[in-house]
């Protein structure tokens, strides 16, 4: 994929469009064969902006992400031009603002390459799949079964909601889900022990949010008559029982 298109770094074919601003930046740094720890910021900024203009001239929508990066580069460039206020030396090179994320991004790009060089399943190595029927004893359970993961579960629910009512979609915020989770935990405790005191349920709760969640869970369980809530007359201890 090595291209040597000298002097016209922004002349890229449509099919070569970049994933994002970082990707474009890597391209420019590579193109100019400069050290990423010593980026000639004026040159790179100029080429970057030229590239965006080229995209615009082709009526390609320049995503906001690209513009943000252009602004960042311009800002760094202007800071480079300013005389350093103090000669203390603890003034960081303004370019670090872009060098650091760029270096990290590059590192991960290499890592992605390393991954692709491994013996990949279903590409370099293969395993036996789909054995129903290849075992010598197999006479049972054909068919209609699917291997499920979390995604399939959500997907199934999504499908149902689609059939029923979109309003349900908004019904399931993370908060209602944590209440459901808490209900499940309380049900576990009750299943094991038959009853639990109010106090115990709240004791382990660290944050205010958790306490509210626990409280809502108890209310919900009471509403569904999953539990009975009883208070001891003398001690005042409130105890929750499995219904």
């Amino acid at each position: 994929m090595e291209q040597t298109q000298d002097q016209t770094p922004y002349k890229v074919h449509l099919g070569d469009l970049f994933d994002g601003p970082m990707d474009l930046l890597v391209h420019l740094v590579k193109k100019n064969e400069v050290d990423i720890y010593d980026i000639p910021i004026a040159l790179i900024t100029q080429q970057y902006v030229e590239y965006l203009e080229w995209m615009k001239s082709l009526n390609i929508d320049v995503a906001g992400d690209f513009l943000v990066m252009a602004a960042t580069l311009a800002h760094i460039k202007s800071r480079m031009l300013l005389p350093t206020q103090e000669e203390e030396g603890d003034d960081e090179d303004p370019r670090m603002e872009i060098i650091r994320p760029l270096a990290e991004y590059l590192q991960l790009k290499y890592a992605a390459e390393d991954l692709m060089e491994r013996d990949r399943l279903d590409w370099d190595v293969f395993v036996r799949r789909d054995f129903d029927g290849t075992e010598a004893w197999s006479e049972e359970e054909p068919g209609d079964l699917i291997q499920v993961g979390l995604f399939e579960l959500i997907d199934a629910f999504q499908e149902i909601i689609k059939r029923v009512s979109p309003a349900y979609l908004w019904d399931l915020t993370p908060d209602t889900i944590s209440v459901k989770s808490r209900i499940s935990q309380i049900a576990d405790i009750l299943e094991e022990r038959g009853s639990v005191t109010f106090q115990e349920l709240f004791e382990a709760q660290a944050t205010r949010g958790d306490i509210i969640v626990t409280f809502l869970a108890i209310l919900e369980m009471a509403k569904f008559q999953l539990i009975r809530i009883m208070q001891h007359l003398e001690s005042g201890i409130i105890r929750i029982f499995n219904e």
Partner: protein
Amino acid sequence: MRTDLEAIIESLLFASDTPLTIDKIKSVLETADRKTIREALTSLAEEYESGKRGFFLAEVAGGFQVRTRPEYRQWIRRLKETRPARLSRAALETLAIIAYKQPVLRSDVEYLRGVDSGGTLRTLFERRLIRVMGRKDLPGRPMIYGTTKQFLELFDLKDLNELPALKDLKDLGETWPNDSR
């Protein structure tokens, strides 16, 4: 001593989901002729018979297939029993509703699915993916369902908090239905 051809054919037999015919093997290898392939297969079959092996070469449906030895069926059955996560579409749908709407009544499940769900609930119950959390104070005292610890294990969730909210998926973008923006 094994030949390269035998090793390659062995890898094909191993990777194939269906019995391989000699013609099929020939078309993949291009170079070898039918007789050479048959000899390689015979040699593999004999080798698999000669020592204590977990598998053998079966000639089935006009082709060849590596299969586990019938004498080990009890172990393989036990392995399969503990195999996770094979559910019918109906069971999955029902389980999804219970997971997201719990505590939930059978009538709610059936309202959402639009079909009788008694059989499916029983299956999920037998597989210990759902449990009865209690009974509702309504005529007939209907059971209230929720998911179990086994459900969490099956889907590799620490707790129900980890169940992604539909909103989260929506945030990931792309084509979610009912996208009313």
